[in-house]
Every structure is written in C-alpha cells, then in structure tokens.
C-alpha cells in the first residue's frame, strides 16, 4: 500500500496543533481572533481523531471557552471581546461536550440565544447583524441537538427553508437561489439528517453531483470547474456518508491527495500540496481520512464532525456509513 511511503505524520500534526498557541507570527494571529473559538474546536477534534486528546490542556481550554461567554446576549463570541455569534457558540458547545464540561453552560440562555436567531423565513441568522446562511441553520440544529433541546425548534419552518435551497443539480446553496456548493451541501444534508428529513434530498442526483467533485489528481473540489481543496475531503465525503454513498469516491486516490498536502517539516495539512498548512485544513483532512478508513485513526461522526463514540453515547447517532477502518 503506497501509504507506507507517505504515511499520516501523526506526531508531527499533534505538535503542530500544540504549537499553534505559541506561534510568534503575531499579525496573522490576532487577525484571526474572530476564528479563535472555531480554531480550538478544529484543533481539539483533530487531536481526538488522532487519539491524542490529552495534547492540549483541558482546564485551560474550558477557561478560555467560558471567558468568551457574552453575558448580555447569552451566547459565545470567538474571543473575549467579540460579540456573540452562532458560529463560535456552536464551537464552544462542541468543545464543552467533547471535554465533558457541559455543566459549565447556562443551557436555557444559550437555547434562547440560538432560537432568537431564527428568521420568519425559517433560516437562521449568524447574529444580530442579520447575515443569513444555511450554515447557520445547521449550526442551530446541531447545537440544539447536542444540548438535548431539539424539541424547542420549529422543525417544519427550518426544513422548509432548506428545501427551498435545493437547486436543479440536486445540490444546495447558502440561501434560496444560491449556487450549489459542497460546503453548503454538507450543512443542508447534516441538518436534514439530524431532523430525520432526508426525504427532502434527491439522493441519486446529489450523490452523482458529489461524486463529480473528484478530480483526476484524486482531490475534491467544491463546485464544477473549481480547484481541489483538502477541506472538501470532509464536506463532500461526510455528505456522501449521510447518503450512504461514500463508496462513490475513489478512496485510495483521495487518501493519497490528502497525505500529499501534509507539511512534512512543521506538520499540519494545507488546502493542497505545496501550500502553507493551517489548523482548519489539518482538521478536515484528518476527518476525511478517518471517514475513508485510514488506519490508526478514531471514528468521527460525519453529521456532527465530532468523535463518533461520544455522539453515540449521547444517543445522537444517525444512519450514516463510512469506509471500514483498514488495519494497515
């Protein structure tokens, strides 16, 4: 198997993630403050998938999460002085659930914050600024589900908006009328999966559209005629996994592609071979490899993008399929 010549450099990626906190590249660092909460979730989940959760300090992480609590709105910001946003709120919840620290959360208030973001049309806004996107619908559904409060959601309204985002090619966009995009396809599929409404998906057409994302170099793109990117290894694969069509992808070629995007010196994975790595692509590359059955990795739940065993313990596992874990 060619993966022996170019294996997944787990120890290197673990230290890459640990070193993110010590990176002296100051300007990039604070310019990404608005992503800090997300970045910690990506880093933590990648470590869990590589079976090295202990590599980041749990208490420090929980303290950071709680320092981002926005008492006024009842949500989490990305960083202590940032306003609450649904993106960082989900990441905060995911981190706390993964770290078994959900007791730190004022669940009622968070649920209230999330529900307050639903628009009359059924879609969710990201914050009071009002930007709407099907990503936020997924985030709301995911978060409420993790908190055991899906019962508070107007499911029909939520599903109805997503259904209207279905395009002629079977895919889904960010809002009604928007072009199909693999990232948006993922969030719509995942939201519908959690709500048990996969009947809203034209599975044969969408599965084909997803299979079409694979390029001759093995990588996946996000829409026709665009470049391959490691993160689509997760968005596309997870979607196919939920539709039980993960075998539509040439897994050997995709595995090779993801592995070739690793930085063999400093660790981390980039969007494509030769580019600089970042924690976002590192996480989604490893998540993709896990779904592809790469040996030595821990199972990840494609719907929640969190450790599968944890989601199962919470009673939230849905009927998705991944490739069998290879022995070597």
């Amino acid at each position, binding site marked *: 198997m060619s993966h022996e010549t170019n294996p997944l450099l787990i120890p290197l990626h673990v230290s890459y993630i640990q070193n993110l906190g010590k990176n002296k590249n100051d300007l990039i660092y*604070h310019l990404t403050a*608005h992503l800090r909460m997300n970045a910690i979730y990506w880093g933590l989940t990648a470590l869990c998938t590589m079976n090295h959760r202990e590599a980041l300090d749990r208490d420090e992480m929980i303290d950071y999460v709680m320092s981002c609590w926005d008492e006024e709105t009842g949500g989490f910001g990305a960083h202590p*002085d*940032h306003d609450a946003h649904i993106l960082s709120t989900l990441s905060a919840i995911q981190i706390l659930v993964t770290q078994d620290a959900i007791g730190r959360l004022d669940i009622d208030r968070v649920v209230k914050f999330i529900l307050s973001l639903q628009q009359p049309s059924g879609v969710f806004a990201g914050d009071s*600024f009002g930007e709407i996107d099907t990503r936020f619908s997924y985030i709301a559904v995911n978060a409420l589900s993790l908190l055991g409060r899906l019962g508070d959601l107007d499911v029909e309204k939520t599903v109805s908006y997503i259904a209207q985002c279905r395009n*002629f090619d079977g895919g889904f966009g960010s809002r*009604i009328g928007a072009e199909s*995009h693999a990232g948006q396809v993922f969030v719509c599929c995942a939201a519908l999966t959690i709500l048990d409404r996969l009947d809203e998906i034209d599975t044969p057409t969408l599965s084909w559209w997803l299979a079409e994302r694979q390029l001759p170099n093995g990588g996946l793109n996000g829409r026709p005629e665009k470049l391959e990117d490691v993160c689509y290894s997760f968005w596309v694969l997870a979607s196919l996994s939920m539709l039980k069509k993960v075998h*539509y992808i*040439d897994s050997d070629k995709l595995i090779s592609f993801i592995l070739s995007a690793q930085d063999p010196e400093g660790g981390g994975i980039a969007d494509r071979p030769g580019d600089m790595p970042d924690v976002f692509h590192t996480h989604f590359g490893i998540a993709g490899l896990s779904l592809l059955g790469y040996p030595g990795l821990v199972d990840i739940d494609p719907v929640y993008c969190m450790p599968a065993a944890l989601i199962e313990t919470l009673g939230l596992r849905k009927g998705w399929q991944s490739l069998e874990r290879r022995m070597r």
Partner: protein
Amino acid sequence: MSQPTLYADRAEWSDVVPIEQYENTTPLAPIFYKNEYKDATNYFRGIAKTGEKSQRVLELTEHLIRLNPAHYTAWQYRYETLLAIGSNFEDELRLMDELAITHLKTYQVWHHRRLLMLKICKPARELDFIARTFKVDAKNYHTWSYRQWILAYFNDNELWSGELDFVEDLLYADIRNNSAWHHRFFTVFQSGVHDGEEDRERVLKRELIYVKQSISLVPNNASAWNYLRGLLEHNSIPYSRVISFIQPYTLSMDEQTADLVDLDNPPPSKGAHLPCALAIEFLADIYEAEGGDRMLNATELWKSLGNEYDVARKKYWEYRIREGLRAIQT
C-alpha cells in the same frame, strides 16, 4: 511609509479610556499584537463600552476594517453608528466599493452592502458594481449570492430584463463558469416569469438551443450538461427526447456522420475531445430509464466509462453496473 499615529498619541482621542485585551487566563493562543492593531482595538473596546456613536467612531471602525475585514463586531458597530448619526448611506456605499474589491471573499463586506441597499434602494447601480467585481473574480460565491438577492428583493422587471444578456456575456468569456450557468437557471426558471418571458414554450426552446450550442462548442463541460438535465427535468421532459442530439457526442471524431446541418442538433465542433464522457453517461441514463433489455446497453456504457472515459470515477460506475444488473434480475 511613515508609521500611522496611534490613537493613544492623538489629542482628540484623549477622552476615551482604551481597554486592553482581556488577558486574565493564559490564552490558548497567546497573541502578540502589532502596535497599530493593538492600539486600534483598544480604542474600539473603549468606545464600545461607553456606547459612543460619532463621526470619529466611523473613522476608527473604518481603520479597523481595513486592518481586519473579518472583524465582525467592528462592522456591526459601524452600521449601528451610521444609523445613529444619520450618515449618508450613499457615501458609505462608495467607500465600500473600494473595500469590496480588496476583500471580495469576506462575508461581512457583502452583508454590509445588503444593509445599505435596504436603505438606499438603488439596485441598478449595484448590479453595475457587481459586474465590475466579476472582472476580478467571476466565480465569487458571495457576489453571485448578493446579485441574486438584489434581483429577487427588488424584483424590478427592468433589472431582470438585462440579466440574460449579462449571463451570456460571462459565459462567452468563460463557458465553464458554473456560477453563471446556475444564475441563468435562476433567472429563467426560478424567479417567476419576467416581462417578455411569458411564452414558456418559446423560452424552453431558446434554452434548449442555447445549451446544445454550448455543448457543441465545448462538449466536456459539466456545467452545461447539468443545465441540460435541469432544464429537461424542470419542464418534465424525458431525457430520451434529446437522444439524437446526444448520440454523436458518444462517438469518436472518426465515427461522426453528420452531413447535413441540423439546427436542432448541433454536432460536436472540430477539435472537440471525443467521445465525451458526460454524453455517454447521459445516454446510459436514457437506456436505464427505458429499462428491460436496454439496461444491458446502459451497463456497457458504464463499463466504458469506468474502464476508459471516466476512470477517476471507476468505483461509482462499478456501483451503477451492479445496481443496474440487479434491476434486470428483479
């Protein structure tokens, strides 16, 4: 280039109490601020705390946004300030024109424009602006979504009337622009019936000719084939209706037989890469829909795809074959 003067050193900001970054815990991601950014964010926190809404806040938020266009709190506060002090929204829009070009891939840039548009209500100008940004990046996802919103929200027939030409220009520049194909479908079939488009038979015919001609020009273009499929399905037309058009594309250049010019079925252009995998797949779908013995023809085509013409998706084709053979047996 000289160092910008810090807010800390400017007399007109001396009444503001700057608030340093919260550093009570050892942050997981310790931050070493560059002075300019640190100073600006300190003063932003200072005025946000007092709730100040003034002209100098506009200056500060503009500065912050230029340094970091993804700072969503700064955008939010800026918008609230514009409202509070009764600013001229059109001036703001002109300022945003400059920022949008440099930061096309930032969500906030486009959302801010949307908010301004809700006040200004001059969509035609926006369509022109969007057209200009497409010269820089013709596939920008946010921009296309914004254009669709403008058209749908204002729903003005004059706005819609220019869209088809607009899309055709973009497709002429790049026939593989998936965003443009999507927008065409959106304009023609998913946004109601516009003035001049009431004769749906004529519209359908026009679209069929357009997509066939596009395929004739560049057969290996997934967007065009997806458009054809979408077109037929949306109008409840079976795929078999276009079998005469499809067939030449499933053959090699040597096997082409068209002597007569058939306007309804434009053949592959010279130099086209044949056979076209997307056409073979389409033909296989036609056979599969017929069922019975035709399923065997379909599996033959799928085999040719998996083995030769679309090897990247060999596994997918193997599954289609398996499922097809199973269907024959039942």
